């Protein structure tokens, strides 16, 4: 796994599987969520944006935790592949964070009557978006890719402090945003007809992350190793 050619060959085997699982889970979850699951008695059909909003929120945060773990491994053990993983995951995480903010304001307009409020959950998510931007920006300014990876790793370790703040923001401050949908410790506050498709959507989003991360990582590996013999062999034959 650690060596680039090994990863490249191994990943070409798992990519179709990741793609198929993503497709199946996402189409099942979204179809179930948007067409089959019952209407919310308070919000009507509007609530169905939840099936995109909540998974992207969870992904935006968990991708950052993933990046910080990669960063930690990269700083301590200098594992090159973890640095590349960090770099490959950053744009995906940033896109999901953007998606949360956009779907959130689309959802906020009909339910709260406003596109945006300066509430703790929303603001901390916006900060997360800026931190993603800072990480990606920093990477692009350093020419030596390995050094850029390590610089971003260092910054991602600091940035991960925002995650518990986002997570707890609905409990610590009085906010307009509702409390967490998912909790591990207690049973869900929604009915199973609404909860199950959400769970499937979430799994589908995670699989999508794994799928797109692998694709990005393959590009990254090829880009960095383009002068190596194994890449030339692979693409000349």
């Amino acid at each position, binding site marked *: 796994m650690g060596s680039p050619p090994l990863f490249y060959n191994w990943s070409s085997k798992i990519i179709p599987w990741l793609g198929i699982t993503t497709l199946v889970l996402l189409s099942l979850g979204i179809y179930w969520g948007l067409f089959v699951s019952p209407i919310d008695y308070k919000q009507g059909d509007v609530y169905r944006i939840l099936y995109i909003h909540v998974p992207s929120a969870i992904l935006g945060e968990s991708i950052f935790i993933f990046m910080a773990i990669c960063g930690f491994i990269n700083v301590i053990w200098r594992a090159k592949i973890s640095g590349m993983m960090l770099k490959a995951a950053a744009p995906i995480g940033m896109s999901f964070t953007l998606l949360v903010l956009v779907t959130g304001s689309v959802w906020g307009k009909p339910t709260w009557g406003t596109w945006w409020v300066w509430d703790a959950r929303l603001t901390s998510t916006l900060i997360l978006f800026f*931190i993603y931007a800072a990480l990606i920006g920093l990477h692009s300014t350093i020419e030596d890719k390995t050094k850029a990876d*390590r610089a971003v790793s260092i910054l991602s370790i600091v940035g991960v402090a925002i995650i518990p703040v986002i997570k707890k923001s609905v409990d610590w401050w009085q906010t307009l945003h509702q409390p967490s949908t998912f909790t591990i410790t207690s049973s869900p506050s929604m009915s199973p007809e609404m909860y199950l498709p959400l769970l499937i959507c979430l799994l589908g989003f995670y699989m999508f992350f794994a799928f797109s991360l692998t694709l990005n990582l393959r590009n990254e590996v090829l880009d960095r190793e383009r002068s190596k013999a194994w890449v030339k062999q692979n693409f000349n034959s």
Partner: protein
Amino acid sequence: MSNSIFGWLTIILRRDLLIAFRRSATYITPLIFFLIVVTFFPLALGPQESLLSSLAPGVIWIATLLASLLAVESIFSEDFRDGTLDNFFISLEPSFVLVFAKVLIHWLITGLPIMAASIIAAIVLYLPFDSFLPILLSLILGTSFMSLLGALGAALSLGKSAILSAIIVLPFSIPTLLMGTSVITSSINSQDYFGFLMIMGAMLAIGIPLLCLLTVEALLLNYD
């Protein structure tokens, strides 16, 4: 003297303070910058007392963050350019101490003058006398944390444009901004502000070891 950590610390501190004081621009610039930014708000928003005093906590903190970012680039750049930093690393003295000393210097030449100026800002923005102590307390903790963050930003953007370090540091300074303004606002509303100070103190307590170590790591990126 130099065989103990404190001896090493005092050597760096004495040297850097001497350099800073030989050039008055290093400690005057952040101070003037802070006052100019504060002055801009009454000019832009109009001189109404109620408006200014309600905006004052935010104004003081935004001016503080910008002013403390102003000197960030100079934390390591000069020592890096003339090779002093190379010698620090070759000397085998703990590099953690070097970073800590640099952070302390940055705080002494930006944080301290800003704290003095913040009282002037508080007076001209019509803040009540009772809020001066919480302003100073929040600034002590907040500017120290900003110096730590600034050192990391400076180390990561060493040899690159100064604006890069600002872009790196600013998103991470938002918690400080929120806590700092909350301290001042709650003291104006005669609420208990101690909780916010405790959070800022906790951030500083975690930040000193963690950010200094990460800054060392970031500096070493330039010496592979």
